[in-house]
């Protein structure tokens, strides 16, 4: 028996038998199917919800309430001509969509979507896999998924996609840091990397949720960073359709485009689920004391919480304009990373003792003051008398520094 397996799931405590392999296969198939169906529903939900917000009707022709619209669109896309630009790097061009979609699937595998279930005398965790590296897998996969975007943009052999892939790589690297830092905060209080333990540690009442016990800040940072990782509005500079036409998937058509589309929504769902896992106790919630219903309520709670976040993304899209690329970088590097680092120090301090917590708090406040001063100094170097011109030559706003050429002092 492999000790690695036993660690991850009590299912394997007594060795691996045919039944257990069957259970694992069923879990994978059900998980895959659930995710695919969720994607179809999510696309429909997004279109419907955003239509309501924009006083439109949205899809209504296919199936009840237009539920089958996504299927119709998928079929239409499959029937379209699959174009590969003449300048494209054919192998990479074909590879890229899969590099986007596979990490989206893998990340979902570690999300606990319910408590436990008894099947054929075995206790089964309702999650596809519970590897010891747990949540790090999600970080790794979000790091990998950028390759799909980058390579798609590069291999198209066209300029807008290339700009998009440059933006994608910079954006992902910038926000990965803040994302990782908030996850570290969660891991610090949990003391374990596995998603199962993270969820277990938040069981009990609502005060145990990481949202509350870590303060709201890590959640806020995580929400912002994950939205940026997802390329969802208002951080969708990578595929900004009004600037870069379609970004990395400008040159894609037919089923390859459908795969990108699918992956985006799959990621939205997965990341909502990860957020619920990390900060909202996953499937935790009130369970009625009825023996046969015990397993279904956690799943319901999980679905409700995830749907709320999916809705949040739609809401963002309807309400917010898009960031500019450099503002995005500013937010990532100058705000989120220092904030998450400081908050991590404070949480770590309080985990040792309250003295250390207060000490760390004061250190962070001091560092914050220093940082603020540094930013101020940087500002004066942008506009003061001894200012450093930006390398590109951005024009100053009239009134602050007026060009002097006509006054004759040159």
């Amino acid at each position, binding site marked *: 028996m492999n000790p690695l397996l036993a660690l991850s799931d009590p299912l394997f405590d007594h060795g691996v038998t045919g039944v257990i392999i069957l259970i694992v296969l069923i879990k994978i198939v059900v998980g895959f199917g659930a995710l695919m169906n969720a994607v179809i529903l999510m696309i429909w939900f997004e279109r419907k919800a955003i239509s309501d917000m*924009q*006083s439109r009707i949205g899809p209504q022709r296919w199936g009840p309430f237009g539920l089958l619209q996504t299927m119709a669109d998928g079929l239409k896309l499959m029937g379209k001509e699959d174009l590969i630009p003449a300048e494209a790097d054919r192998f990479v061009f074909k590879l890229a969509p899969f590099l986007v979609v596979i990490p989206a699937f893998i990340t979902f595998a570690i999300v606990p979507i319910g408590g436990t279930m008894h099947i054929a005398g075995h206790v089964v965790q309702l999650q596809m896999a519970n590897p010891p590296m747990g949540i790090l897998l999600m970080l790794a996969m979000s790091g990998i998924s950028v390759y799909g975007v980058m390579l798609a943009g590069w291999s198209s052999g066209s300029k807008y996609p290339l*700009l998009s892939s440059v933006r994608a790589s910079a954006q992902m690297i910038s926000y990965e840091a803040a994302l990782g830092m908030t996850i570290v905060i969660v891991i610090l209080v949990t003391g374990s990397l596995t998603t199962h333990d993270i969820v277990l540690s938040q069981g009990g009442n609502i005060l145990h949720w990481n949202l509350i016990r870590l303060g709201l800040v890590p959640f806020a940072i995580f929400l912002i960073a994950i939205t940026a990782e997802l390329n969802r509005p208002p951080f969708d500079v990578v595929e900004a359709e*009004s*600037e870069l036409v379609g970004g990395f998937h400008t040159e894609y058509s037919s089923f390859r485009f459908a795969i990108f589309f699918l992956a985006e929504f799959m990621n939205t769902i997965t990341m909502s689920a990860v957020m619920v896992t990390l900060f909202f106790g996953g499937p935790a919630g009130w369970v009625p004391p009825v023996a046969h219903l015990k397993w279904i309520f956690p799943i319901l709670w999980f679905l409700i919480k995830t749907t709320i976040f999916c809705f949040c993304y739609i809401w963002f899209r309807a309400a917010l304009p898009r*960031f*500019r690329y*450099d503002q995005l970088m500013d937010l990532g590097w100058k705000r989120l990373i220092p904030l998450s680092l400081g908050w991590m120090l404070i949480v770590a301090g309080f985990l040792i003792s309250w003295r250390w917590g207060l000490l760390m708090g004061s250190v962070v406040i001091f560092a914050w003051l220093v940082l603020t001063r540094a930013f101020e100094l940087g500002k004066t170097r942008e506009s003061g008398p001894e200012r450093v011109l930006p390398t590109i030559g*951005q024009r100053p706003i*009239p009134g602050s520094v007026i060009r002097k050429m006509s006054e004759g002092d040159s």
Partner: protein
Amino acid sequence: MSEPTVRAIERLDLLTAETSEGAQELQRREFTKPSELGREIGAVLLANDLHIDPTQVDLERRDDETMIINMGPSHPSTHGVLRLMLELDGEYVLRCKPVIGYLHTGMEKTGEELSYIQGATNVTRMDYLSPVINELNYSLAVEKLLGIEVPERAVWIRMLMSELNRVSSHLVWMATNGMDLGSTSMMIYGLRERELILAFFEKTAGLRMNLNFVRPGGVAADLPDGWQDDVQVICDTILERTYEYDQLLTGQPIFRQRMIGVAPITAEEALALSVTGPVLRSTGVPWDLRRTMPYLAYDKVEFDVIVGTYGDNFDRYSIRLNEIRESIRIVRQCVDMMPRGDYRSQDPKVTPPPRARIGESMEALIHHFKLFTEGFHVPVGEVYSAVESPRGEIGCYIVSDGGAKPYRLHVRGPSFVNLQAIALLMRGGSVSDAITTISTIDPVLGEVDR
């Protein structure tokens, strides 16, 4: 040079031969004259000096550090078929050159083949977002040549319609600007409100766009019954909605970051480039033809000329938003002060007789026949008259040789002139700023290319 690079350049030649617009295109630095380069980086010839000296431009910049990209003619946010060639350093715009003419339909030349009575249908298609104002501009010029006075009611109807048109045009601008910034909801909201005005136009003139409503001698039809109520509803709804836009965009931190301080222009530069409209007013120059050179009855209504301070994108946005409110103010005064009387001149040489009179009067039949076959004759002379369109000063220059058709028709399109400032505004901004800048200049390509 290595072999594959040589192949790439051959390929490039092939491609440019297929799609080249010749000298209009942005060339690499080594093939560009300094004066040309100066224009591309946004040099402005001021009265006493050059704003940017092209000789100081970094001519030695290597071409592999920069990238020339085509934005348009079919790009989602170039507002039609504007084609910009941008030289980028990473994300930042170093040079910009607009290439126009993709919507050129020869409207000015066509205008010389149409009689004065048909002319309004032609000019209304130039700036398709403010058709009434185009017609008004043309009609005012023709009336000046004819030397006729239009009835008081026609003047006020014209004013009402052109202010409603200004609102609808600014609403489309608000919508597309929101879209360019990624705020898709604004797109729908702006068009939703515009729909009210278009419905009123349809009720009044029978058409939603390209109305051919304002004609030399008056307007095509009187206002429909119950127009006061319709206009009241339009004013109330849109005024209320502008405060919703404030919540959605004006106060939105991301929106403010995207707009404030981006693409500034000074009053000096704007005047040197003969920029008009909101772009000029954003620099603080209170130049609004409705106030500075009043036409129609604008001297009889109260309204404020909105000006900005910094000349940046945000100023241009707020000017347009507040002009919607000011226009609504004017529209309300039009409703209150609308006089009674004829809605078109009763001069039978200019205005066709009513349909009912044709069956009764031989004279009416002859007038009708003459007007719609030959048109009316306009005295020899030339005239330039200008009105304030949502985009700036739209002027009409007509030379008449005494016939029924203009000898020469020229329209000063504000979009076309404002487009000159684009290289100056874009310099140093990022690609995203370029999009907002195109948007805040608000070119209508039908008017640019004519």
